[in-house]
């Protein structure tokens, strides 16, 4: 036994045909070992916090109940400029938070037809900015945020600042998207209607 142990370090680097094979095998395994190291990093670094956070938020959502959010839907349908933030800010945020992707889009049913595309645009644009603070809303697409956030973690910087700014900018962006898409939808709907009437005449 001790003879074997003593001999091992003296073994020469394999050369020739088998040497090439051995190096290829080493390289091949190394390829996946690099991936495995990354995987363990993700499992240890992200999963524990995520599980606890997801459980807490899931419990909160269950405790509050989805029915209560639906009341906002009816309110958001009203015309007038003061309802824009309700329709394209409050309603998307609440539906993404409580109903999560992809069920959040069902809240569109409370709105008149002309607002539905804009509401969809607004809420679908919020399923990623919310991830930094509330990953329960869209766990299947976490890496849009975590991919980039992992780089920040590698540098040893905190993620809180990035997560909050991502959320805030997301809020501004979904409001702009809602308004712009509503304008375009109105124009397209009007054009489609005249075209249909023209075809009928």
């Amino acid at each position, binding site marked *: 036994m001790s003879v074997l142990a003593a001999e091992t370090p003296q073994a020469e680097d394999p050369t020739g045909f088998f040497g090439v094979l051995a190096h290829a095998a080493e390289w091949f395994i190394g*390829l*996946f070992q*690099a*991936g*495995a190291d*990354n*995987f363990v990093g*993700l*499992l240890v670094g992200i999963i524990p916090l995520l*599980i606890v956070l*997801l*459980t*807490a938020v*899931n*419990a909160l959502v269950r405790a509050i109940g989805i029915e209560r959010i639906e009341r906002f839907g009816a309110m958001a349908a009203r015309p007038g400029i003061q309802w824009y933030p309700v329709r394209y800010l409050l309603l998307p945020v609440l539906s993404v938070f409580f109903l999560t992707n992809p069920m959040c*889009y*069902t*809240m*569109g*049913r409370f*709105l008149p*037809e002309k607002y*539905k*595309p*804009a*509401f*969809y645009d607004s809420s679908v*644009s919020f*399923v*990623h*900015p919310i991830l930094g603070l509330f990953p*329960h809303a869209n*766990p*299947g*697409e*976490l*890496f*849009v*945020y*975590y*991919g*980039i956030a*992992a*780089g*920040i973690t*590698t*540098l040893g*910087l905190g993620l809180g600042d*990035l997560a909050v*700014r*991502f959320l*805030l*900018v997301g809020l*501004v962006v979904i409001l702009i*998207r809602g308004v*712009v*898409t509503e304008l*375009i*939808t109105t124009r397209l*709907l009007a054009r489609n209607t005249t075209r249909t009437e023209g075809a009928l005449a």
Partner: protein
Amino acid sequence: MSTTVENEKATSGGSSVMGKASGVLVRVGKAVGGVVGVLYQAGRDTIDTVIRNIIPFMAFVSVIVGIVNYTGLGNVLANFVAPLASSLIGLLAICVFCAIPVLSPVLGPGAVIAQVVGVLLGTRIGAGDIPPQYALPALFAINPQVGCDFIPVGLALGEAEPETVEAGVPAVLFSRLITGPIAVVIAYFASFGLYSSN
């Protein structure tokens, strides 16, 4: 367990005080049971999501990251992407490209493209090729196509009429071409002061 014993005593005793006490105990028991039930179910949902959605994607990402890093492909990509992702103009270019109405529905599904590009950029940020404050605008630059593959389904979930879908699909796609770059610019200005002290 103790609640049950108390209840039995109360019913056998038959006095009103005992009856009231047992009523309170039953209510407390039910409330506690409800809270525990909600938390337990939430935990069950969470583990389900982690196993079904999160860990499979981590495995997928790890394979890609492993290959990219180990083969040196990462360095090649970094030379290509890092200059783009380290300036506002470059980020706008990425964003406009992803928002082109024909491309955006193709790039959308499952946000896979955004996630893979996100991981690549993250690796580069970690390596120091891209300044950390560019993380915020990059998050928007790689993602103007979000949900563009899903518009008809999303609208159907909102019980929209076929006419609405007909107008809604191009409306959202065109809107992205305008609001995508706007989002990047807003995020760029919002990133001032982010990690700058470092």
